[in-house]
């Protein structure tokens, strides 16, 4: 029986749980934990430069690997600085365990130095949270936290650890993990779908004349891509995906119509609008996807599979609700097709694909080139071409994010990391460095904006310390592009505080931090600059690309309209 302090138990439990990387930032309340960490041979610590960056990095690591991302911060401001990152992970269902220091239990509630009610502040943005009361709570709660974060609908879990629970002088017997794993009577996610519902839905699919397969982030979380591709091929289904679902179905496959929703493609949104059956997996019908709910898919029956029952019939009423894991349910669908000997209706599908071909022919993502001015879309296309799409793409939030989603073809899951639900500017850069920690085989490309990048620019120092060779492309338009786009389109062109004309010299910033920087202004230089940036394999390179300030993200759905009411590039 090993005797350990709370701090040693914390480190030991993380080791037991297979944690290889811990993203963190030390401080007063976690000094004892950091001291115990000093002895660990298994856990490698990545020191960020701000707790928001630390937690986003753990998020990026989690999204790219599918493992739980873990971070450790101190009490008070350390904890509050992670709040945006926790909310980001919550909205996008990312498995994250956030360990926060806390003042000693006798001081809790006394407004002590660096005390904050972390559990209270984070309550609405976590899947669950724990406040340890004694040292032996730590292993128990951490194991539960990992279990909760990574099962069911994944999400962030906070474990708040008061300083007296980790005191090095007091040792306890280390509670070994239960060989049967974590069990909780109040938490039992449903994985198998209801057989009868699935058979009904399978028949409906075989009878559908205008079906669409709609995939979301849940497909990636579940690892359901292969089975859903099988379904798509079997029934020749047009496939669309939400922002979070990009990569769930190969982007370069001819059956893929592109992303749907506010900045979705014409063909994806038209297909949804005219569909008679929407087979949705792992989505939650967010308002950026549905546009006006009253006008959403008027002709379609909705078959909605999700692991979170609360996501079903929350906004869009499901005709056939199926609660379960996307991959398991997809497998059940395949069985049902076999059992019921269901065949697709090729005649109807030919006609349906005929309509879709016409919508595709509008070529809704075409844009005008300018010999003097780089269009932001060109940057995405140039990097895609140079990497042959074999890269992890991380974005910040804004126009560049939508351009990346529209113009890059994601052929596999976990290659696109972006803050979808919360829309967190400043997410991309730290998430990209976290992604590199988890994925060393592929280049990590960050598309960011001059606005977003400056929200967590301090992590350039982290990248220097750990030799993280990100390829950063700033689509630099000297403005908060997306907000400006709305001001131009809906606020009579009144540009209110969106100009960013006093940006730093990003090349000089890169160099000041010990990295490489390239400035590009002319379209003719773009390809060369991209090639050079990618060729510097061991270096972080900031490629500051001066882009057209007036470029707009199109198509764009008209607010209050149906899926098919869209502003197009030629309008």
């Amino acid at each position, binding site marked *: 029986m090993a005797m350990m302090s709370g701090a040693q138990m914390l480190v030991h439990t993380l080791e037991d749980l297979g944690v290889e990387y811990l993203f963190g930032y030390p401080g007063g309340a976690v000094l004892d934990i950091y001291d115990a960490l000093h002895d660990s041979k298994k856990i490698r610590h990545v020191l960020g430069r701000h707790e928001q960056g630390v937690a986003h990095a753990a998020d990026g690591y989690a999204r790219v690997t599918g493992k739980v991302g873990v971070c450790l911060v101190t009490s008070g401001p350390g904890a509050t600085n992670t709040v945006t990152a926790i909310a980001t992970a919550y909205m996008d269902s990312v498995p994250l365990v956030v360990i926060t220091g806390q003042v000693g239990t006798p001081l809790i509630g006394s407004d002590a130095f660096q005390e904050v009610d972390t*559990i*209270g502040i984070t*309550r*609405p943005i976590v*899947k*669950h*949270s724990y*406040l340890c009361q004694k040292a032996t709570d730590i292993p128990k709660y951490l194991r539960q936290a990992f279990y*909760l974060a990574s099962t069911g609908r994944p999400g962030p879990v906070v474990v708040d650890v008061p300083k007296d629970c980790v005191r090095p002088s007091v040792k306890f017997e280390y509670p070994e993990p239960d060989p049967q794993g974590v069990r*909780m*009577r*109040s*938490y039992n996610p449903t994985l198998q779908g209801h057989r009868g519902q699935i058979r009904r839905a399978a028949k409906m699919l075989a009878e559908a004349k205008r079906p669409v397969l709609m995939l979301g982030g849940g497909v990636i979380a579940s690892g359901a891509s292969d089975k859903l591709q099988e379904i798509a091929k079997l029934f020749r289904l047009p496939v669309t995906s939400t922002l979070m679902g990009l990569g769930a179905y190969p982007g370069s496959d001819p059956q893929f119509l592109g992303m749907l929703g506010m900045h979705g493609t014409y063909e994806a949104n038209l297909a949804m609008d005219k569909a008679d059956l929407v087979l949705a997996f792992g989505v939650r019908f967010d308002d950026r996807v549905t546009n006006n709910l009253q006008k959403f898919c008027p002709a379609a029956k909705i078959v909605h599979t999700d692991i*979170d*029952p*609360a996501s079903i*019939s*929350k906004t869009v009423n499901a005709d056939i609700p199926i609660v379960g894991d996307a991959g398991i349910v997809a497998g059940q669908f395949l069985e049902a097709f076999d059992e019921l000997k269901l065949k697709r209706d090729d005649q109807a599908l030919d006609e349906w694909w005929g309509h879709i071909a016409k919508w595709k022919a509008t070529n809704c993502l075409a844009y005008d080139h300018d010999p003097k001015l780089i269009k932001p879309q060109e940057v995405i296309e140039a990097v895609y071409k140079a990497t042959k799409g074999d890269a992890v793409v991380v974005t910040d939030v804004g126009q560049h994010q939508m351009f990346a989603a529209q113009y890059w073809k994601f052929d596999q899951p976990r290659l696109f990391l972006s803050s979808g639900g919360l829309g967190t500017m400043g997410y991309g850069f730290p998430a990209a460095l976290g992604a590199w920690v988890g994925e060393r085989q592929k280049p990590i490309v960050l598309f960011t904006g001059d606005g977003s990048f400056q929200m967590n620019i301090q992590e350039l120092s982290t990248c220097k310390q750990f030799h993280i060779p990100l390829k950063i492309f700033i689509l630099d338009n000297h403005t908060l592009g997306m907000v400006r786009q709305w001001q131009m389109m809906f606020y009579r062109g009144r540009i209110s505080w969106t100009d960013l004309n006093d940006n730093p010299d990003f090349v000089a910033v890169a160099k000041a931090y010990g990295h490489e920087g390239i400035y590009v202004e002319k379209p003719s230089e773009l390809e060369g600059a991209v090639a050079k940036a990618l060729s510097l394999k061991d270096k972080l390179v900031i490629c500051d690309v001066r882009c057209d300030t007036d470029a707009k993200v199109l198509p764009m759905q008209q607010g209050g309209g149906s899926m098919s009411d869209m502003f197009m590039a030629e309008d």
Partner: protein
Amino acid sequence: MRQIISILLENETGALSRVVGLFSQRGYNIENITAAPSEDPSISRITILTQSDKMELGQITKQLYKLVNVIKVSALEDDSTGVVEREILFVKVQAIGHTARDEIKNLCDIFKAEIVDVTPELYILQYVNSSPEIDRFLKAISEQFDVIETVRSGVCGIFRGDHSLHV
């Protein structure tokens, strides 16, 4: 639509605040709430009275289930088996002079309420019944007498017969 929701959840610190927080965060209404241990000391029972339509009630139930501490949720609906629901009311009322004191006593007899505390100038009345009956009693008292203070417990309810909400 008036709905009583009964919730069984782990008797842990912060569990109640998660339930209350969920209601405020998602814009659901709470008319009243009671919380106490259940027959199993490791489990608490919370009873919430809310106004919501069928669709919203479905969402509330699902969102409550999503809370990791929550074990079981049930809307106490007046289906065929039915529900027993009660609330407790205390009213402190001015009772000066024989006439007033007699009349209050009479009213209490009619409603089967009790006088549980007496001073030369005050009565405290206790009344246990369903919430609508409590409203009626309170109306009758306050129309005739000076009510100083009212305290209501919030509603609690239980299914009739062998239909139960337990673990």
